[in-house]
């Protein structure tokens, strides 16, 4: 099937309902061929919903929408989550009793490929050559993102919609994707959903700013005064921020101050057909904040999981954490009580039915979901965190009804709630807009400035430096 040329889309006073708690309201918006739009706004403002409405999602309650793009290629956190979920369903290990690494990358490309010539070009460009035989579940989050991009491009969509084009990509890949999108914009209609003002590609011609389900304003990027105004609008002052206290009497057992928090010696992570890293030493003293960097697939997440105990090979490495030499009878919960953790993997795994406040409380128990009765004090602290995040009105709303960015904020609060000895933030700003990113960075700075918590921070963005972090390790 060849793609159909885009003839333009017109929203007229359109109200479009997505679920009981969210609708787009009175949208007036005209997209014309040749324009490259970027939708911006805070998390939960309806950016992704507006993009989805263009493809026919949601129910039009009033007004009209002409020119729905049914055959759109989608790259988004949601489409990534769908793929992960599909793999989970395909996992036959229970019925076959064989443990599988997931569908190979090459199969996942073949199943959607309509342009083999393009595919042949993209594989080396995205450095997928070495990954073609690898199972989906063995990919790092950045590699998964690249796969998703390639799938969308080779399926010959009528329009490519990219929600957060640079999320999860390492510094080397960002300009690459930027160039590909620039080239693509000349031939294929392109719509971007952008979380960060500093990530706005220069080939974008128009910006649509969303707020609370409404299209607040549209700006042409060549209009300099209007653009300045918008960046001001997106700026947030975060000086009033205060981190809620930890729970007295609820603290983890005290650590011997003479010991390092973490001491990893000559560590390696390897699979039968793949060496992730080897000969790695890392000693972390209490109060010493670290930033960890490295390209996609270099093993950052594996390394962090050796510390948290989520990587099974922590048992055959020389790892000392929080006074335990791993593999001597301690349980994973003995380790986790000292750690607060945020990562994409945790975010994908956090799919239980639970309300917003309990997500924060679950941080006291290191659980996904809440299986214990929270104390009054824990409830109080969680309520304070909700106020910091501006969610006080939404305390009982279900977690899965929050936008991705808002979910991420909740998971960050969950990680910080007990003021852990070690706070591990693996790309905490993944999927956050400018305003919330500043909020999170400010929170991390406050945590770093305190004396209780040591921070390990992973980030691809060089400009997201945090005051107080001055140790660096690169894989």
């Amino acid at each position, binding site marked *: 099937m060849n793609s159909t040329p885009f003839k333009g889309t017109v929203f007229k006073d359109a109200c479009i309902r997505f679920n009981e708690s969210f609708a787009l309201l009175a949208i007036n918006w005209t997209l014309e061929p040749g324009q490259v739009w970027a939708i911006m706004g805070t998390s939960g403002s309806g950016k992704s919903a507006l993009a989805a409405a263009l493809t026919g999602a949601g129910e039009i309650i009033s007004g009209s929408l002409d020119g729905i793009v049914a055959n759109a290629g989608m790259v988004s956190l949601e489409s990534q989550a769908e793929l992960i979920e599909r793999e989970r369903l395909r996992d036959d290990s229970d019925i076959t*009793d064989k443990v599988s690494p997931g569908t190979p990358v090459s199969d996942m490309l073949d199943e959607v490929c309509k342009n083999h010539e393009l595919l042949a070009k993209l594989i080396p460009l995205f450095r997928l050559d070495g990954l073609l035989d690898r199972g989906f579940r063995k990919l790092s989050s950045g590699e998964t993102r690249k796969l998703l991009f390639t799938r969308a491009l080779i399926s010959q969509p009528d329009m490519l919609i990219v929600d957060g084009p640079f999320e999860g990509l390492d510094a080397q890949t960002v300009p690459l994707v930027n160039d590909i999108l620039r080239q693509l914009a000349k031939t294929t209609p392109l719509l971007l959903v952008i979380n960060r003002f500093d990530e706005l590609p220069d080939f974008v011609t128009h910006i649509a700013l969303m707020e609370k389900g409404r299209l607040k304003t549209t700006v042409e990027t060549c209009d300099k005064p209007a653009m300045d105004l918008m960046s001001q609008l997106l700026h947030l002052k975060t000086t009033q921020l205060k981190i809620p206290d930890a729970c007295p009497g609820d603290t983890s057992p005290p650590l011997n101050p003479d010991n390092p928090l973490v001491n990893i010696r000559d560590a390696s992570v390897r*699979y039968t057909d793949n060496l992730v890293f080897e000969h790695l030493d890392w000693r972390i003293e209490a109060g010493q904040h670290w930033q960890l960097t490295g390209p996609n697939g270099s093993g950052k997440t594996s390394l962090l999981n050796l510390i948290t105990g989520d990587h099974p090979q922590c048992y055959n490495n020389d790892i000392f954490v929080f006074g335990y030499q791993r593999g001597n009878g301690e349980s994973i919960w003995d380790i986790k009580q000292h750690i607060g953790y945020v990562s994409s993997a945790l975010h994908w795994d956090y799919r239980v039915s639970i309300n917003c406040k309990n997500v924060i409380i679950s941080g006291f128990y290191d659980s996904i979901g809440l299986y214990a009765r929270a104390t009054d004090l824990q409830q109080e602290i969680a309520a304070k965190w909700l106020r910091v995040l501006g969610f006080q009105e939404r305390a009982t709303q279900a977690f899965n009804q929050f936008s991705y960015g808002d979910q991420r904020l909740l998971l960050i609060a969950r990680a910080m709630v007990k003021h852990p000895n070690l706070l591990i933030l693996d790309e905490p700003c993944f999927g956050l807009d400018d305003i919330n990113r500043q909020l999170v960075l400010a929170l991390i700075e406050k945590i770093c400035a305190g004396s209780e918590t040591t921070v390990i921070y992973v980030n691809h963005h060089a400009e997201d430096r945090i005051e107080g972090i001055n140790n660096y390790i690169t894989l």
Partner: protein
Amino acid sequence: MANYFNTLPLREQLAQLGKCEFMDPAEFTDGVSYLAGKKLVVIGCGSQGLNQGLNLRDSGLDVSYALREAAIKEQRQSWKNATENGFTVGTPEELIPEADLVLNLTPDKQHSGVVAGVVPLMKKNACLAYSHGFNIVEEGMQVRPDITVIMVAPKCPGTEVREEYKRGFGVPTLIAVHEDNDPHGEGLAIAKAYAAGTGGHKAGVLMSSFIAEVKSDLMGEQTILCGMLQTGSLLCFDKMVEKGIEPGYAAKLVQFGWETITEALKHGGITNMMDRLSNPAKLKAFDLAEELKVIMRPLYNKHMDDIMAGRFSSGMMEDWANDDAKLLAWRKETGETPFEKAQNTNQDIAEQEYFDHGILMVAMVRAGVELAFETMTAAGIKEESAYYESLHETPLIANTIARKKLYEMNATISDTAEYGCYLYNHACLPLLSDFMTRIDTDVIGRGMEVPDNGVDNQQLIEVNATIRSHPVEGIGQTLRGYMSAMKRIN
């Protein structure tokens, strides 16, 4: 080896069958400490073997894997699973003599061979654990008298056992001690520590017996779980096609219908499943189910009787000895049914439509669950066991049909379940042929066309009362209550 159950006096048979109690969470306050520092060796590195081992190790226990020398040399998948997860791997000769607890997590059919090979290597006074008791109860495996024999059976697939543990929770788990092999009186302490190591104690543990587990498990899997769903699939599909419904639609309605319908069952029992229908449809489904129960009751009784008498297992073992001739012929036959070969439509079927157009399927689920439950409890099995082996597991099997239809379901469920399913299906198809001649598309495929949804109040009250007062609903509510009380706080 003789059937163990049959060697017991009636009094003892009844006592063992009637064992199944929900344990107080306070019994698990010692966690895994009874096994701390002990050596655990797992045999079998498939989904259950690997995932249970991961949980036990994360609970602080010392776990390694015994694999056959060839599997290690050739670096087979089982070897990769164990080593990539950082486990120590060795041959049985290397690891078993050191083991305090040996976990046999291989398929049923391999048990005799595995146990015969492993027990002579085990040190004196060690413990052997099963997750299914067929080998002990039906094959009459005699284990050296100094060895403790226990069972710990998580009532969920292996990946779920792992996922729930990582969340900080667990899955419902059944434990038992083989009383003939509890020489030091420590079987229960070991089983409790093992269950705590897999996280099972957080979701609820049932104290049962080898016999109750085996007899109820066999009955459940061959009647309602695999048997009824398979027979129902074939009958419903053929009827729809005969009445002119597009085969692609019929195939999809059946393949995904069981999963959708039983999801309602999982959350709120038969009551909730029936409540998903409109009132006229509910009355219709009720009548159909009542009729089905009368027709099928002798068949359910026969299955239960054959299982109790040991005729089922001896028949199956004859087929094992005959290179699975019957089993393989049947598997081939299943692969060639029109339902299996039909291509699903791309048309979307809404969640509610699976109920509205699948009234007969709802009736079959109700009839099958209630009959299996009634037959088991009448035979002396406790309601708790009967609930887990009928209603609780139906959604799990329905889920395998949704993924892979029947041929794959049969190829991948245990051979024991498949063999039982074969017996059930061959008897049940002819049994229902007359009933099916009276079935039309109003109850399967198209849904009822009624001028309005009105029904008679008295009739509806009676029907609701009958559904809700069935004993499977009472025990179901209690057991689901334990689960959700632990699972969802606030």
